[in-house]
């Protein structure tokens, strides 16, 4: 799974950006400032860094320069820079420093998705409102780690990483196809792409009704063991 690092001193930005990236199927780490980011870069390799431009102590521009100077140690992650300022000067500085994309705050979710999809070559395919159907019973690889059933039990978001070679039919309901006895769901939109021999599907669900949470949990557990 590809890994992303999000750096910002604003917790709400960290949460939104992380959620967008998780929904795209990325593994996400966060850092509250550039110093913490550098410590993480020494420990882990990242495919993507999304960083605020203006942070106290060490700015996003300075972080970028350090990363660029240390490609041997840090690799060559794609870099998206975020800033609340609109000045052309900041944009120019970011691009000169080596940022691949420059986005304004507040983060517009679709713009961030588009930038990341483009940079990481997720080969996005946008699918109609009625979503995606998996035409055979599938075993999820990472879905169980990502699947989040919210406390009120009526909705969840599930980016699903599937095995390669599955036949995907567009036009029905992904979860209804997998667990019809337990779940009724309306898929609002989905993104699918092929990546490293696997299909990645990120779908958003609405009006989810879990008829029997205990049976659902047992079914999930059985599927986890089977896969």
């Amino acid at each position: 799974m590809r890994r992303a690092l999000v750096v910002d001193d604003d917790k709400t930005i960290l949460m939104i950006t992380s959620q967008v990236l998780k929904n795209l199927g990325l593994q996400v780490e966060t850092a509250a400032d550039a110093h913490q980011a550098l410590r993480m870069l020494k420990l882990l390799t990242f495919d993507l860094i999304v960083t605020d431009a203006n942070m106290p102590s060490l700015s996003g521009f300075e972080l970028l320069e350090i990363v660029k100077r240390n490609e041997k140690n840090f690799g060559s992650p794609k870099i998206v820079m975020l800033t609340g300022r609109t000045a052309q000067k900041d944009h120019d500085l970011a691009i000169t420093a080596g940022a691949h994309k420059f986005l304004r705050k507040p983060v517009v979710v679709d713009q961030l998705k588009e930038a990341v999809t483009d940079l990481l070559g997720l080969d996005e395919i946008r699918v109609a409102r009625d979503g995606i159907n998996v035409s055979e019973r599938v075993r999820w690889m990472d879905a169980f780690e990502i699947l989040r059933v919210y406390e009120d039990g009526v909705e969840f978001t599930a980016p699903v990483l599937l095995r390669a070679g599955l036949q995907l039919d567009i036009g029905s309901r992904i979860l209804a196809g997998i667990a019809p006895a337990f779940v009724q769901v309306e898929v609002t939109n989905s993104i699918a792409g092929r990546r490293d021999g696997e299909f990645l599907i990120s779908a958003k669900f609405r009006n989810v009704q879990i008829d029997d949470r205990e049976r659902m949990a047992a079914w999930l557990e059985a599927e986890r063991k089977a896969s």
Partner: protein
Amino acid sequence: MALLNSARLGELYELGGHAFVREIWQVFLETTAHDLPLLQKSLILGDLSQVAQIAHRLKSASGNVGAERMQGCCYTLELAANAGNDELTLMNLCSEIVISYHETARLEPTKNVA
């Protein structure tokens, strides 16, 4: 200007449902409750650079969760502090932020999702 931008809340809902909206809302309330006294203190001390910096941070946080009126007030204060406006003007703008924050904090974000 509306207190809340329901389209923004709708965007957050699309990202992670009601639970995510509630979670980020709570973070917004807590960080703002922490920052507002710092803002007032900086104003009293006449540290306009710090005032502008905190106003900028509050603008970002409020904008992220769709607290539109508060975001506008923060933006005005940030500009005024950077321009070196007089203390009374800055105090009034700061009061507007505090009022808009308390009005916003009373709302239930999940009921305002577009």
